[in-house]
């Protein structure tokens, strides 16, 4: 067992997959000699050379669009977008090409590719280094969306993403890149999409979350325990497909649901989960599902951490649900 951070887990997943399958290539800005600005590709250029670790010109349209072409022609590209906020110049390629080529061609062509991107706030980066744009991808038919929150999951899910036959958007919560360390098995493993992880069991309230706010959710659950409330914390891990069964089973048991995410609330993935709970479990709910999300403003530089769901905000919402 080795102890590693999320960024190290990502690097190991890339390395193992590149060693296993020579069709796997990495492309992006500064992924070569520099090893990526977060060092997620460190050492790969030296190991696999410039034809498999490609420093691209500064164009996300080129990165994602070329990945589509490589994928339809038989490679397994893993594109890095330096920050999720910079996916937008490549958004058309993702939405119009990657997401639709299988459907558009009646299944003749497929684009097995991964687009990795550090996402989320808490790094004092202002709006263009802090956003959580997963809703755009989840809203786009044809894209799978994965958001790990631990090193173990990052490793297993990224390997699955690379082997998957569909385009996968792989979002890495950058504020957790180095803050969480965890033991990870030395042997190879993969993790399936569509299976949530129950991070903490409880009977009074369910917190459904993913990515960065998993940390605040667990802290809030600890606080609640001090006052005798047992919260169950579910980390979705993958958004498309998402694990409806685990969520509904838990909420059926607790009768109360908080959906906690960093992305803005308006038309968000959190809203999708909350709506599903309301639709399918209405008669078993003790309180309406409550969303605790980022605010519907651009992500401000000041205040940085207060934009995202704080422990206090989660506790305020829990109180509302418990006192309903």
């Amino acid at each position, binding site marked *: 067992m080795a102890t590693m951070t999320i960024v190290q887990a990502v690097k190991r997943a890339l390395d193992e997959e590149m060693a296993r399958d020579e069709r796997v290539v990495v492309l992006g800005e500064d992924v070569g000699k520099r090893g990526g600005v977060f060092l997620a590709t460190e050492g790969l250029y030296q190991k696999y050379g410039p034809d498999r670790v490609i420093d691209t010109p500064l164009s996300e349209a080129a990165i994602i669009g070329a990945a589509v072409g490589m994928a339809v022609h038989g490679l397994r590209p893993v594109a890095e977008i330096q920050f999720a*906020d910079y996916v937008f110049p490549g958004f058309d390629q993702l939405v119009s090409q990657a997401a639709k080529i299988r459907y558009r061609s009646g299944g003749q062509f497929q684009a097995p590719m991964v687009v990795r991107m550090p996402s989320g706030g808490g790094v*004092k980066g202002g709006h263009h280094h802090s956003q959580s744009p997963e809703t755009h991808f989840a809203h786009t038919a044809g894209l799978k969306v994965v958001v790990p929150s631990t090193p173990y999951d990052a490793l297993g899910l990224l390997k699955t993403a690379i082997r998957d036959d569909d385009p996968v958007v792989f979002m890495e919560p950058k504020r957790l890149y180095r803050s969480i360390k965890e033991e990870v098995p030395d042997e190879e493993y993969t993790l399936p999409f569509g299976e949530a992880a129950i991070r903490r069991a409880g009977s009074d309230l369910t917190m459904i979350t993913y990515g960065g706010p998993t940390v605040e959710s667990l802290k809030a659950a600890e606080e609640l325990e001090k006052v005798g409330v047992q919260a169950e914390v579910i980390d979705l891990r993958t958004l498309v497909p998402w694990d409806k069964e685990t969520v509904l089973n838990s909420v059926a048991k607790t009768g109360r649901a908080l959906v906690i995410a960093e992305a803005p609330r308006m038309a968000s993935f959190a809203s999708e989960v909350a709506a599903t709970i309301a639709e399918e479990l209405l008669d078993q709910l003790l309180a309406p599902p409550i969303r605790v999300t980022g*605010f519907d403003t651009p992500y401000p530089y*000041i205040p940085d951490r207060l934009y995202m769901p704080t422990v206090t*905000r989660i506790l*305020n919402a829990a109180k509302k649900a418990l006192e309903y």
Partner: protein
Amino acid sequence: MFQPFTEEPIRLIDEKGNWIGDFELDLSEDALLTLYRNMVAGRLLDERYIVLLRTGKTSFVAPAAGHEAAQVGMAAAIRPGFDWVFPYYRDKTLLLSLGYPAEQLFAQMAGTVLDPNKGRQMPEHPGHKDLNVFTVASPIASHVVPAVGAALSMKFQGTGQVVLTTFGDGATSEGDWHAGLNFAGVQGAPIVFAAENNRYAISVDFSKQSASARIADKAHAYGMPGYVVDGMDVLASYYVMREAVSRAREGLGPALVELLVYRYGPHSSADDDSVYRPKEEVEAWKKKDPITRFERFLEKRKLWTPEFGEQVRDEERKKLEAAEEKALSAQAVPPEWMFDDVYAERPWHLEEQKRILLEEL
């Protein structure tokens, strides 16, 4: 009249400080000394920002030492407060030279209420409506097309204004950059595109960015002249920019000016440049320093002595220190400001969300 598309960069001062232009220098002594003072002030500002970072007063710096001559030259070529500027994040010396108040630049770095942008953006992202400086956006090249739009508005309204937009070499790979130049070319927009080519986009050197020998060459494709300039030469930067700006003002259309510069520091405070470029390369460029070169030029004209240089540095340092003091002693931006300016008026859902935040403060 400068020739576009030259093989060698346009240069007016050689490295020994000799004037090598084939025309009469038409700047007053005062104007020359202002160029000098602005470069010195820009260098000092850059140094102060790094101190702010080390003392935890800011969270990010984009070092600009090495870019001073290009930026001071451009600033002098336009009419501040009349023409519009769409800058990028490495332009502190340009903005300071345009008269952007230093205390407001410092306030932007620290997120205090003196920042006209209300602390909304990360450091090195200023902007100022009164000075017609469009607030910087991080996404590379995203400001280039809006800059063209503003120029078209100027053209259609016949205001006589010109747009200056700046960007790095990496920006020339983005689709938006090409979309902007193409549209400007088609419409003959009054705009000057200024590439501050420091050879690197973070770690990616220019040979991996473009197969063109020069950025200026790309102007060909968009039907405008492209000039390549020694951007470590403040007079070359100024004169070429002046010509490009006056062409645009006269209705002769856009131009692309490539200023060859070098950034002495890492890409940003989050970067380690030793991984991708040799120290010797940096040292070699520092020997071509634009401020030193201009000092030699001024010295030959009896406008500069080491004592005078020291005096200018002292004066500028004092001004910056006073500005910094004022900016940093101002109140920090209050958290609830985040709900303002999302729209012209705050809709109900933001009122609700503001209450959620206030509940927890």
